């Protein structure tokens, strides 16, 4: 069987990793697309397919329902919907993929945020018969807010519109205009039929007018940026390693994962929030000394001076230190069932540092459907996205989320029961400016940044 040989070569030769997420409304066929992607790239093994065929037959379906490959929970299979994010893994000869398969239903917006937070690419699915709908705009807005670098618009069910180019062109144009306005840097539109398999893995025989890549080709070739030279270097200290053994009596290393940029031996560094300075005396890359290390490597930094450094501190180049502040202004996506209210006491987790904080103000709430903002909503409830002002008990070195997804993001946590309340992104909401709605309040600070 040639597929076996192909698969063997594929899995052993692919060395780079792409993390991507899917988003689509309930009946847009998202699970079918994911199933098709896995199936046609020969990433579904015989026993998994057999289980799906068996389950499909016992439900009275004639063809195997590829959605059953991904809907793994009892409740999901019973209701035929995706409830929670699932992670999938597959490989082709060119790349390995981690897919965050996220639910599309409005009430699970928070799960799309979860999937998008680690994704370098998002596939937004649209039903060709319906075109761009409210939920499509919502998905584009979330991708823009989370600063996902690449967005794919997959116009699905082309088989149900006679594979007509004008249908695709109109949807692609409308979506691209909308997403560009939100600051999505790159948009690729692809006409597909997940059910039949057009342009998912194999090129379609029904759409000669389309000259672009299939979904898989695009996933395999989309460039993932590794240019770190312009990034602000950031190293959150996770843990202090002190063996205190005869062999290593004086070893004191600061363990952590480089959040952004590069660090070199000999470099002058500042430890925040204390502001103490030193030089990097050595870098251990998991037991091996190196001269230079970069994100996202997990390393241990050794400093020349014996200064006070502990978990939660941020090591940065002395000539590129962020400002520290106790006042955070950010966009948050509320992910908990209990609301977030003005005056509420919370914990704020930023990199490895968790501090007490209080919600000083919720200036506005975003309506994703039309991107209008509602001033002073008083509180945020599950799946709301809003602006918040938070005062922290200790100074934090927060970057703008636009500059660093890792050091510009934070969680708000309920100190009573540990619930994750909100996902925060410091600084401006969207990448580009947009004319403010006419009914906007006079207070500039309360307004959205578009």
């Amino acid at each position, binding site marked *: 069987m040639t597929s076996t040989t192909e698969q*063997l070569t594929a899995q052993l030769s692919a060395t780079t990793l792409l993390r991507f997420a899917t988003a689509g409304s309930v009946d847009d066929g998202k699970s079918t697309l994911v199933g098709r992607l896995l199936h046609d790239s020969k990433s579904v093994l015989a026993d998994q397919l057999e289980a799906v065929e068996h389950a499909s037959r016992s439900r009275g379906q004639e063809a195997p329902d590829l959605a059953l490959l*991904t809907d793994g929970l009892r409740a999901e299979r019973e209701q035929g919907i995706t*409830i929670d994010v699932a992670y999938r893994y597959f490989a082709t000869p060119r790349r390995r993929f981690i897919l965050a398969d996220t639910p599309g239903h409005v009430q699970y917006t928070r799960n799309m945020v979860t999937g998008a937070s680690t994704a370098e690419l998002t596939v937004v699915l649209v039903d060709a018969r319906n075109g761009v709908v409210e939920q499509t705009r919502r998905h584009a807005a979330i991708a823009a807010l989370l600063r996902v670098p690449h967005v794919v618009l997959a116009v699905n069910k082309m088989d149900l519109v006679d594979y007509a180019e004008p249908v695709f062109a109109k949807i692609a144009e409308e979506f691209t205009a909308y997403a560009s306005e939100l600051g999505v840097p790159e948009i690729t539109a692809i006409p597909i039929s997940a059910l039949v398999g057009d342009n998912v893995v194999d090129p379609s025989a029904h759409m000669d007018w389309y000259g672009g890549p299939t979904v898989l080709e695009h996933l395999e070739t989309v460039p993932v940026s590794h240019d770190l030279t312009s990034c602000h270097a950031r190293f959150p200290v996770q843990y202090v390693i002190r063996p205190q053994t005869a062999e290593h009596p004086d070893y004191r290393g600061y363990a952590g994962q480089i959040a952004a940029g590069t660090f070199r031996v000999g470099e002058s560094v500042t430890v925040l929030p204390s502001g103490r300075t030193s030089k990097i005396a050595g870098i251990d890359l998991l037991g091996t000394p190196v001269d230079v290390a970069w994100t*996202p490597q997990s390393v241990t930094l050794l400093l020349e001076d014996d200064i006070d450094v502990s978990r939660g501190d941020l090591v940065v180049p002395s000539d590129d230190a962020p400002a520290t502040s106790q006042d955070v202004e950010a966009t948050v996506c509320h992910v908990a069932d209990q609301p977030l209210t003005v005056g509420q006491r919370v914990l704020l987790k930023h990199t490895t540092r968790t501090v007490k904080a209080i919600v000083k103000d919720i200036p506005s709430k975003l309506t994703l459907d039309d991107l209008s903002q509602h001033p002073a909503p008083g509180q945020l409830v599950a799946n709301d996205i809003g602006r918040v002002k938070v005062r922290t008990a200790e100074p934090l070195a927060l970057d703008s989320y636009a500059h660093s997804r890792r050091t510009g993001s934070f969680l708000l946590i309920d100190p009573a029961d540990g619930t994750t309340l909100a996902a925060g992104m410091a600084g401006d909401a969207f990448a580009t400016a947009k004319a403010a709605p006419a009914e906007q309040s006079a207070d500039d600070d309360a307004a959205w940044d578009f």
Partner: protein
Amino acid sequence: MTTSVNVVTETSDSPYALTHLDALESEAVHIFREVAGEFERPVILFSGGKDSIVMLHLALKAFAPAAIPFSLLHVDTGHNFPEVIEYRDRTVAEHGLRLHVASVQEYIDAGKLRERPDGTRNPLQTVPLTEAIQQHRFDAVFGGGRRDEEKARAKERVFSLRDEFSQWDPRRQRPELWQLYNGRHAPGEHVRVFPLSNWTELDVWQYIQREQIELPEIYFAHERDVFARSGMWLTAGEWGGPKDTEPVEKRLIRYRTVGDMSCTGAVDSEATTLDAVIAEIAASRLTERGATRADDKLSEAAMEDRKREGYF
């Protein structure tokens, strides 16, 4: 017929690109260090199987040159492969680790658990595991579970909060955003932590090869007395197999997973080296669990049901 109009170049030759194994290793180390920084009494579940061996290797690297700041816990079904127990004890001694053992056999002997008619003890592990967690007041429990193993596990978080009964409720999981893991828990609750969440079976094997990690011999092809049950080769043993109708034969086999002898199947194999094992897995048309685990075949949602009760 379709040619791409936007030809883009792969950037893997960038000096800052990490290979997929380096990226997975870095992520797992980050998870180990987060737990060390935030929890009081973490423990690593260690069975002597390849996933827990890789976890231990990653923990050793994460805290080098200091010792691992965690102890180990083995939930012993009593139906072990002798090679695996020997490996377990040797590894513990070599690294000066502390090993806790929760014994299914002791629970059966004390009348607290009843042997199942099919002789399978895997589902019986849940009670000794959860009681050991309570007894030792472990607040973080590392498991080698991978999301690629099974469809319910694909829904599992890296940090998975469990209540005082160790239960998993897939509908009430905390969203996991960026690399910001929220490990806060009330007294009596604990967090299950899965540093290998994003690894596949093949990643584990390629990493074992790259790092030259020693494994128990049963992972490599060897001759063994086995008998067929439910389409799998099982090792004859004191746990109740084979029955009279199940003839024993000598075959060249190896194991893809290590678990309870009564439900862990072997596969026919000639792979005696890491290279050969990797080639065999890459070419296999069966998943690891589909090929070798009887307990997952009990029902369509067997894993989800066991996880809800507190199993890994």
